[in-house]
């Protein structure tokens, strides 16, 4: 068993060692000012990062690689809408590079590695690496301040550690392919520190925009010039057209208000949110096939996607000094206020325009040269016919080269390049988005103005890919057995949580919280159905609430399974932290191990929680708003416990990740005594006779001094136990004694005849003594 673990570990170490040289620490001109990360995608130094990283550093800067050296970089293109940017490193003949994978193949549970420079810890520019799993796919995180900037419309949610400084860095699969660029995370009360939710831009979206980025444009994102909404309750809701611009391509193709949308670009549309997320991944100018239903008939059309304009905020006028043109004896002119345009280095206002034609041409030449040299993994045979003859020409014979931008060819993203060739004349060619090994996808001669004679058809949807397989067979049923809960929040307490279904008859457990007091409490099932919920019972000892919902639920957790969970065992936590999942969207999954099972004192801020009994402590982060009430399961999908309400440990003072064990929940639900809870088995009536031990404390120095024993009454219980003068009391009956006041309080609380343990320090030893108090006044 150790051998298998060692070899799997060695494989992971080898993959990291192979890809880490391609990971970049991106700085501005001064590395000491901090920065983000990026990843190289081609040997000539082209790297992808986040737009917000270069927005902070500027249009040029320095980049550190794991060889310990800094290389200058220059900005190539930006995508402010999707938070992407391409930069070009220089200073080396051949840079190490990574390759993009297929982000559509990812499923929750897949292992991922996030690499970057959190907190700028990489003094030697070796990036930090964090291991985690995919928590969710196609997640939506809106733009800054409701704008259409930095929109993560189709993000991969991960629980590998993403912190400030990881921005722009790659997300790798465990076989070394870049499936995302990390750029956002959910932060809450702890400030800008990872709490288990990070978001990455998927590699398929990056491939869509790569052509426009290389063309040195400020990318623009697509819009349908129409809005859609869900009609009818989940799960049988339809997406219908709510508003439509009469000039839009959709309207001109015949779409009408109220028509039902079926698919866009080959992707079936299930909800309006999903459509909104899909559109954010598409560049403006692409043509995609849209299928809709109008008056009972299915219709389809090729729709050219319009561009969503960026809103550049206005800047107030700034007073400006005119340069002195008169002799120094004359006073300079008074400041003249003049409205200045907002500094717009990234061209938000002129998005779409080629900003740097010279750089564009150099990149076009490099791309073409690499493609013609057949530096792909498998050299393509030269095709017969005119295209073959074109391919056989040396790169130097091509002129007027220009990268035009992104295009959609054969149902996938391509880089469009135009140019001229002495024998063949003007042409347009389309390459795939593998920058290191570009392959020709299509080619067409062009007319004098550069218009291609033949245009690749907007492909009908490719053959449907097989359903994505989850790495664990149990995951789909976990997602059906766990629910979202909505209620009212108060102040800092949120009004949403998770819940677990524990029977086929509509029994749901969730964590105690203010939202359960809401008379309009709702439970949202996995398919999006919303049902009202009623509180049936509460347990203060378990801080758990039992709800009833009026539907049958064939998917449920079996509380009596109670798998044995030992420290070190893997766990998955299923829930809805930060309400990332809405409606029928799947819940989030995070992974970790069981740390321990123990009774632990909990508090919420400064107030102790009345929680009793053991809890399962885990290192998957579940102490987030929305996660309590969620399921904690083993890899087979059996319930280990229910995620507890957000609380801190009295022992460590930190937020604690824990779950109420399934056996305690089972006992609660069946009305049995809960293990470890309450004063079970304590016979008789409490004894209120005053007790004495014979201990005299040294009190002359005050109440807050250490509890030294000044004298022991001869023949007293303390004397019989062996207590002596100058002993220092450390603990009485398990309670820590810090000073005289603590000791007096503890001694006053003892009962006649009940033996207690007293811990004392004598010299250099710690002794445990047993003392049985007697009634005061009696010998």
């Amino acid at each position, binding site marked *: 068993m150790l051998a298998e673990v060692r070899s799997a570990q060695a494989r992971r170490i080898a993959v990291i060692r192979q890809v880490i040289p391609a990971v970049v620490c991106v700085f501005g001109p001064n590395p000491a000012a901090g920065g983000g990360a990026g990843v190289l995608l081609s040997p000539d130094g082209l790297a992808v990062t986040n737009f917000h990283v270069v927005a902070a550093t500027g249009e040029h800067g320095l980049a550190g690689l794991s060889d310990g050296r800094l*290389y200058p970089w220059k900005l190539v293109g930006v995508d402010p809408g999707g938070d992407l940017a391409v930069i070009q490193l220089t200073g080396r003949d051949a840079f190490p590079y990574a390759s993009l994978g297929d982000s559509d193949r990812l499923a929750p549970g897949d*292992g991922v590695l996030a690499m970057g420079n959190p907190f700028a810890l990489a003094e030697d520019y070796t990036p*930090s690496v964090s291991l985690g799993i995919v928590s969710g796919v196609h997640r939506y995180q809106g733009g800054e301040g409701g704008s259409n900037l930095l929109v993560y419309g189709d993000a991969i949610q991960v629980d590998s550690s993403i912190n400030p400084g990881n921005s722009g860095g790659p997300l790798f699969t465990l076989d070394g392919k870049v499936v995302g660029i990390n750029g956002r995370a959910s932060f809450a009360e702890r400030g800008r520190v990872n709490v288990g939710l990070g978001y990455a831009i998927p590699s398929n979206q990056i491939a869509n925009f790569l052509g426009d980025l290389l063309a040195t444009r400020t990318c623009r994102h697509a819009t349908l010039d129409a809005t859609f909404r869900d009609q009818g309750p989940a799960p049988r809701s339809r997406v219908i057209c709510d508003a439509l611009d009469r000039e839009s391509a959709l309207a001109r193709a015949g779409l009408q208000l109220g028509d039902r949308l079926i698919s866009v670009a080959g992707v079936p549309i299930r909800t309006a949110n999903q459509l909104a997320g899909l559109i954010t991944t598409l560049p403006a100018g692409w043509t995609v096939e849209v299928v809709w239903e109008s008056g009972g008939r299915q219709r389809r059309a090729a729709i050219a996607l319009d561009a969503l304009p960026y809103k550049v905020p206005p800047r107030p006028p700034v007073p400006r000094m005119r340069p002195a043109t008169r002799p120094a004896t004359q006073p300079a002119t008074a400041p003249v206020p003049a409205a200045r345009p907002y500094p717009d280095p990234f061209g938000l206002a002129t998005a779409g325009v080629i900003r740097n034609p010279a750089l564009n041409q150099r990149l076009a030449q490099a791309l073409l040269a690499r493609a013609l040299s057949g530096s792909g993994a498998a050299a393509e045979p030269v095709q017969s016919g005119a295209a073959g003859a074109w391919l056989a020409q040396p790169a130097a014979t091509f002129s007027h080269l220009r990268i035009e931008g992104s295009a959609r060819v054969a149902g996938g993203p391509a880089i469009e390049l135009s140019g001229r060739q002495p024998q063949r004349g003007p042409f347009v060619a389309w390459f795939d988005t593998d920058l290191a090994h570009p392959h020709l996808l299509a080619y067409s001669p062009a007319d004098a103005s550069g218009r291609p004679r033949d245009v690749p058809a907007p492909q009908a949807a490719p053959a449907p890919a097989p359903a994505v397989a989850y790495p664990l067979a149990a995951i789909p049923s976990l997602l059906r057995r766990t629910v979202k809960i909505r209620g009212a929040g108060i102040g800092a307490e949120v009004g949403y949580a998770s819940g677990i279904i524990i029977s086929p008859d509509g029994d749901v457990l969730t964590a105690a919280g203010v939202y359960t007091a809401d008379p309009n409490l709702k439970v949202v099932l996995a398919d999006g159905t919303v049902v009202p919920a009623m509180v049936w019972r509460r347990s203060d000892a378990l801080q758990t609430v039992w709800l009833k919902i009026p539907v049958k639920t064939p998917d449920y957790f079996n509380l009596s399974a109670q798998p044995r969970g030992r420290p070190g065992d893997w766990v998955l936590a299923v829930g809805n932290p930060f309400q990332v999942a809405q409606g029928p969207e799947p819940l989030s999954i995070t992974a970790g191990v069981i740390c321990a099972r123990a009774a632990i004192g909990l508090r919420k801020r400064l107030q102790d929680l009345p929680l009793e009994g053991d809890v399962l402590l885990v*290192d998957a982060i579940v102490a987030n708003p929305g996660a309590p009430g969620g399921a904690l399961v083993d890899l087979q999908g059996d319930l280990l416990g229910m995620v507890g309400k957000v609380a801190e440990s009295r022992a460590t003072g930190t937020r604690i990740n824990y779950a109420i064990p399934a056996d305690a929940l089972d006992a609660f639900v069946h009305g049995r005594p809960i293990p470890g809870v309450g004063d079970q088995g304590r016979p008789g009536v409490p004894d209120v006779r005053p007790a004495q031990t014979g201990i005299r404390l040294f009190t002359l120095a005050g109440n807050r001094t250490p509890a030294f024993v000044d004298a022991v009454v001869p023949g007293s219980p303390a004397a019989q136990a062996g207590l002596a003068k100058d002993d220092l009391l450390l603990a009485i009956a398990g309670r820590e004694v810090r000073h005289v006041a603590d000791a007096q309080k503890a001694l006053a609380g003892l009962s006649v005849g009940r033996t207690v343990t007293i811990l004392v320090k004598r010299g250099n030893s710690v002794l445990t003594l047993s003392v049985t108090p007697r009634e005061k006044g009696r010998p």
Partner: protein
Amino acid sequence: MIRNRSSGCRAGRRWRWGAKLPYRGLIGAACLLGIGSLTLAQTAPAGPSARGLARPEIPSMLDSDLPAVVRAAAQVIRPSVVTIETFGDIGFADPTAPGNTPGNAPGGGRGPRSPQPMLGLAEPGAGPCTGLIISPDGYIITSTYNFLRRPQVITITLADGTQYVAHLLGRDDTRGVCLLKINVPAGRELAVPTLVDPADLKVGQWAIALGVGYGTATPAVSVRIISGLKRIFGRAVQTDARISPANYGGPLIDIEGRVIGICVPLSPQAGPAPPGMLAGAAGVGWYDSGVGFAVPLAGADAARWFDKLKAGQDLRPGRMGVLVSPSAAEPGEMPGAGPATRPASAHPVPAGLIIRQVQPGSAAAKAGLQPGDIMTAVAGRPAASLAELKTVLAHYVAGDTIPLTVRRGGKNLSLSITLEPAE
């Protein structure tokens, strides 16, 4: 393909996909029309850009053999992990404990480990802390987080349940560790763990953190990987296992049960603490964030500071008292850049750090450094940037004397500097 249309205006469009040709005729067509074009099916390569239909096997993080291995490794280290409890109010030093001076305790009111609210914690906890036995005669190492002030009474509980009184010896503020000693009864030898050579560590290997901070009898575990090596100027290993007060002072081990380092809160902004926070509390704000640190116990440096701590010395970061800037710097260029970025003409100034200012009365002033000097080597190692200087100085503490090579007026001088503590 339209590229130069200004946003929002449709008039400037030249042509669009499909506009030239009737669209319906192209539905379902898998290839381009027109002479001389290539069909997509023929040229689409089988390389990485093809839309493969079969999902390649993607390995998972959740190695099902790992839990048993983790438990076995925890068993291996268990005899060396100890529970530390402290008693007595601050402000009253135990006169019998070596190293306690009245100046240690600025006045109290709260528990020994909870002087003031710290980063990220509303109210620090009051539970036990973790330590590790590092020698058979009773030396125990733990994190300074638990000993920000000198508590009056310290007790150690070993794995077998026996309890001893411990004394605090030295504190290493540069690494966040401190040394305790218990008097082991004659004939008893404590279990000492095996250490991993830091040179053998690999980014991506499993790392397991153990701690008793929750009050459990058996140490709680957290499992992830090694994220980075030589962090905090070479002092610590970085891990994304959950490091927090629950395991500060406890060991970070590999899957064989060997010690990688001691879990401690650290931050690159170590040094003089902000007002209101004691030195040694920096970094606790990153608890459970997936950025955690462990200080290795093996290596040449470790032996040196272990001896100093044994002697009861407190180790503080050493400072020189100078303002420097890299000698090879030009606007937009940094030393360490690749050769292609250096200007063609050779730079006449040697690579090193130019002294811009010398603080009066500081270690640098006493060593005889002057503004304009160029430091070319510190303790025998080149230091051409501030980061490199800090990495070299991380091997030393206040009170160490190190040699410097300095260029002044065209001549090379050998000076020596005794580092002083940062206030």
